[in-house]
C-alpha cells in the first residue's frame, strides 16, 4: 500500500504483523449455509477454505466479492472481508478495490449467468486489464437461484422453464472467452475432485494477474448430472484429460489414449505401452494463446476428452502495478504531489490580483 492513503493506519499493522498460523476453521463464518443439500457449491467452498490458510496471507487481507446467484452467497460463508454485490458486476467492485488497495487478496465468485450473461462485459475487461485477482466461475449450465432457466453455457436445444421448446441459443465456451480476453491464468476444475480443485485454487492465487478458473459445478435441483461422464469417478479417467505442464496429453483408465496434432487438428490416438513420440506435449506458458485455444475447443461430442487443469499461465504486468508505476514516475518527473504543489495547481498559470 502506498504511503499517504488514509487507509494505511489499519493496513500497515496488518501487513507488518507476521501472519498467524491459520487453519480452515479461521475461514468458516458463523452464518448458516443456505445452498440445497447435495449442491456442488459445498465442495467448492470447502476447497477454498482449505486453500486460504495455506497462502501466507493474513485473514484480514482477503476480500471475497460476488455478484448474484446461488454461488454468489459464497462470501457470507467465509470469515473474511466479503462483498455480496449486484448481478454481474463483481469484477467492477474488485477492480476499484484492487486499484485503491493493491495490498489485498481479491477473490471473485461468480456463475455462468452472473459472469457470462449479465456481467459478460465486465468479465472480459477485468481479464484484459490483468487486475490481480482470482475469479472462480461456478459453471452449472443453468440459472439456479431463479429456479431453472437456460444460461449462456446451457446446451443448444435444452428444455428449461424459459425454453420449453428447447433453447435456440448456442452456448459460450468460458475458457475460449477467457483466452480471447487475454487472461493470464486460465484453468478448469471440477466440484467432485477436491484435490484437483485445491491445487488449481492455490496456483490461481499465487499467479500475479487475473486468474480465471472455471469450475464445473453440479446443480442437483435444476441440472443434475450436467457433467456426469467426468464428475463420476468411475468414468472420469476415460473422459477427462488432466493437463500438466510439460507432460504429454495422455488419458484413459489405463493411460492408453493420447492427443496428437495433425496440422492444427487434434486427433485421439490409442496406444499400448509407452506413448508414441508424436503425442502433443502441454505448454501452459506458451505466449501465443492458440495452443490453449485449441485445447479449449476439444468437443466431447466429437469424441474428445474434456481438458481439466491449467490451460494458460503467462506473465504480464498487472493493472494495479502499472498504475502505481505511473504515480511513482510522475512524482519523479514533476514533484511529490505536496500540498504546496496542489496549491500551485489551484492557482494555475494566469492570475490577477484585485487589490483591497
Amino acid at each position, binding site marked *: 500500500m502506498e504511503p499517504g492513503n488514509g487507509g494505511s493506519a489499519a493496513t500497515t*499493522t496488518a501487513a507488518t504483523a507476521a501472519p498467524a498460523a491459520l487453519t480452515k476453521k479461521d475461514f468458516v463464518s458463523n452464518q448458516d449455509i443456505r445452498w440445497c443439500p447435495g449442491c456442488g457449491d459445498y465442495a467448492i467452498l470447502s476447497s477454498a477454505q482449505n486453500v486460504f490458510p495455506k497462502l501466507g496471507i493474513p485473514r484480514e487481507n482477503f476480500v471475497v466479492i460476488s455478484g448474484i446467484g446461488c454461488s454468489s452467497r459464497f462470501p457470507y460463508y467465509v470469515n473474511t472481508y466479503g462483498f455480496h454485490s449486484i448481478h454481474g458486476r463483481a469484477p*467492477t467492485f474488485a477492480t476499484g478495490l484492487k486499484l485503491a488497495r493493491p495490498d489485498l487478496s481479491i477473490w471473485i465468485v461468480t456463475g455462468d449467468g452472473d459472469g457470462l450473461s449479465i456481467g459478460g*462485459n465486465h468479465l472480459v475487461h477485468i481479464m484484459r486489464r490483468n487486475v490481480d485477482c482470482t475469479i472462480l466461475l461456478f459453471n452449472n449450465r443453468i440459472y439456479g437461484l431463479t429456479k431453472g432457466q437456460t444460461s449462456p453455457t446451457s446446451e443448444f436445444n435444452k428444455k428449461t422453464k424459459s425454453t420449453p421448446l428447447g433453447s435456440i441459443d448456442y452456448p459460450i465456451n468460458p475458457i475460449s472467452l477467457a483466452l480471447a480476453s487475454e487472461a493470464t491464468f486460465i484453468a478448469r476444475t471440477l466440484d467432485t475432485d477436491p484435490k484437483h480443485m485445491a491445487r488449481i485454487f492455490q496456483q490461481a492465487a499465487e499467479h500475479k494477474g487475473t486468474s480465471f478458473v472455471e469450475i464445473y459445478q453440479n446443480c442437483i435441483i435444476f441440472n443434475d448430472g450436467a457433467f456426469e461422464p467426468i464428475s463420476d469417478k468411475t468414468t472420469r479417467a476415460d473422459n477427462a484429460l488432466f493437463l500438466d505442464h510439460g507432460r504429454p496429453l495422455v488419458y484413459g483408465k489405463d493411460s492408453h489414449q493420447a492427443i496428437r496434432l495433425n496440422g492444427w487438428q487434434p486427433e485421439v490416438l490409442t496406444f499400448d505401452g509407452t506413448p508414441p513420440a508424436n503425442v502433443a506435449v502441454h505448454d501452459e506458458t506458451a505466449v501465443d494463446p492458440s495452443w490453449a485455444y485449441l485445447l479449449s475447443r476439444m468437443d466431447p461430442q466429437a469424441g474428445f476428452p474434456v481438458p481439466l487443469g491449467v490451460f494458460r499461465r503467462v506473465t504480464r504486468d498487472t493493472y494495479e502495478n502499472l498504475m502505481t508505476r505511473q504515480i511513482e514516475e510522475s512524482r519523479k518527473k514533476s514533484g511529490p504531489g505536496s500540498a504546496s504543489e496542489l496549491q500551485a495547481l489551484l492557482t494555475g498559470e494566469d492570475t490577477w490580483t484585485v487589490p483591497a
Partner: protein
Amino acid sequence: MSAKERRIEDIDHIVIRFAGDSGDGMQLTGTQFTDTSAILGNDISTLPDFPAEIRAPAGSLAGVSGYQVNFSNFDIRTPGDAPNVLVVMNPAALKTNVGDLEPGGILISNSDAFVADNLRQAGYTQNPLEDGTLRNFRLYKVPITKLVDNALKENPLSFRQKERCKNFFALGLVYWMFNRPMESTLKWIQDKFKKNPDVLDANTRALNAGFYYGETTEAFETRYQVRKAMIAPGTYRKITGNEALALGLMCAAERAGKHLFMAGYPITPASDILHELSKHRRFGVKTFQAEDEISAIGAAIGAAFGGAMAVTASSGPGIALKTEAMGLAIMLELPLVICNIQRGGPSTGLPTKTEQADLLQAMFGRNSESPLAVIAPATPGECFTMAFEAFRIAVKYMTPVMVLSDGYLANGAEPWAIPKIESLPVIPVHHPTSKTDGAFLPYQRDPGTLARPWAVPGTAGFEHRIGGIEKADVTGNVSYDPDNHEHMVRTRKAKIDGIANDIPHADIFGSPEGDLLVVGWGSTYGAIVSAVEKARAEGLDVSALHLRYLNPFPKNLGDALKRFRRVLVPEMNLGQLRMLLRAEFLVDAIGLNKVKGQPFKIAEIGRKIHDLNPKQMPSARRAAAVA
C-alpha cells in the same frame, strides 16, 4: 494608409459572440479572448455553444459553433442576454446567430466565405451582406481569407493550412477594437506550436494582421474599452465548472488525508473531469476509464470499500445506467460522490446542450426507498465548493452524494478567487482499528449522524460482509425480518434528513418577506438574481432564494416560502423543483420553464416577473434596498 487616431470609448460591459464552422476554431478564439479579459481584471462569464458532431458538414447550419463572452467592469452573473458584437465566419453562422444580435449591434463578417455554395447551404438565395437585410446592424465586411493569405505570403504552409489561421485574424481585429493586449495569446501560440515553427509563424502573423487591419483601415471609427471590474479583493484566475469540480474533489481528498479515486466513462459533457484528474497521478489521484458506466460506479464503490475517496462522474444517460449501483451504495452505506453534469434529454437528447431535468432522477430514480444527498453548484466557481462539500457529507454520513452540475456550468467560465488549501476545512475520517469487546458490528450507528463505521479490509478483527440484501440493524447480517426492514428503510431516510442540521440556511437575496419570491437551483442563479436585482431597482417587491442543497432542503426553506405571497420557480425543465416544493411545503408555486438546451436570459425571467405584476416595495424596505 494613414493611421488616424481613433476615439476610445469607455463602456461598462460588452457581450461578444464568435460564431463559425465547428472547424473554424471558434471555441479557441473565445477562450483566448476570455483569458485576456480575465487577466486584465474584467469580470467575465462565458457560454460556449457547440454541436454534438465533431465535424458536421462544413458550412452547414448544424455545424455552427459559437462562443459568447460577457466582460465587464462590474460584477456580472451571466454571459449576457444578447451579443453587442457578433463575429461570423460564414453564412451559416450568420443565419443561426444574427437573430440574437442587439439592434444596432456590431456585425463583423468574413465576406470571403459568402460564396454561392456556402450561401446555398445556409439557405440564402442572395448574399445577405449585399441585399440590405442587415441594415439594422453596423456591418463590417472583412475579406478575412484574402487578408490572411496576403499576410502569410512568405509562409510555406499550403493555402488550406493558412486558411485555418483566419480565426486568429478575427481575434486580432477584436483585440484591437476592444483595446486588449495580445501578449497572453501570443504566448499561448508560442507554447502550443513550438514544435511547428511554420504554424507558429502563421498564427502569430494572422493575429497581428487582424490587429493592424483595425488600426490601418478607416472602416472602424471607434474603439471601446472596458476597465477593470470592482470585484472583491483577492487573487483570481479564470475557471470552468468542470475544472473547478475536479480541483474541489482533489482538495477534499487532500483535506481528508486520503487519495482520490475517480472512475468514469467518456460522456459529454462530463469527460473533462476524467481528463483533468488523469493528469494528476503525482497527487496520488487514481483515475480509471471503465468499460461502461456501470463499471465506473462499481469501481468507485469498490475503492470506497477499500477506504478511498471515491467519485464517479457522468451525464444523464450514464447516470441512468448507474442507478442500480447507486441503490447498492445506499444499502452498503459507503461514502461515494456521483457527479451528474446534466445535458438535454431524455435518452441521448442534446449531448452538448444544457438542461436541469435530472433533479427528480437524482431524488427518486432508483428502485424502492433509496434516498441520497443531492447538492447543486450555482456557478462555475462554485463547482469547487460543492465538490468539496459532497465529500464532506459523504464521509461524515457514510452515504452517496449526488452533485448536479450541468453543461452550462461545466463549460462556462468565470473569475475565481483562488482559495488557500490550508483554510479549507479538514474532513475528518475515522476507520476503526481497535475495538473494546465482542464482535465488530458493521451497522452500529453513530447516534448523532446515524452513520455506520467505515471499517476497511486489511484491518484484523473487523472482518465483515456487506451486500445488497437487507441488513439486520447493528449486526449487518442478512435479514428478511419485516420489522427490521421497515426500521432500516426509515433509518436510511432519517440519516439523509438529518443532514439538514449540518448545512447552511438558504440565503435570501432581497427582503426576508414580501410579495414575490423567485426560487431557483443550480445554474439558473445568475439569470435569476440579475433579473430580481433589476426588478428591485424598479421598486418591485421581489426577492430571490437559491437552493444549493436539494436533499435535504435547508431547514429554513419552508418558513422562508411562507413569508411571501407568491413563489416563482424558473427551471430548465418542466417544473421539477416546483413539484418538490409543492409536495413538501404545500405552496402553490408558479413555474417558468424553458427546455431549449439554452440557459435563461435575464430578460426572460424579468418578463415573467413583470407578468406577475408584483406590488411596489413598501417604502421602508425600498429605502433599505437602495442603501
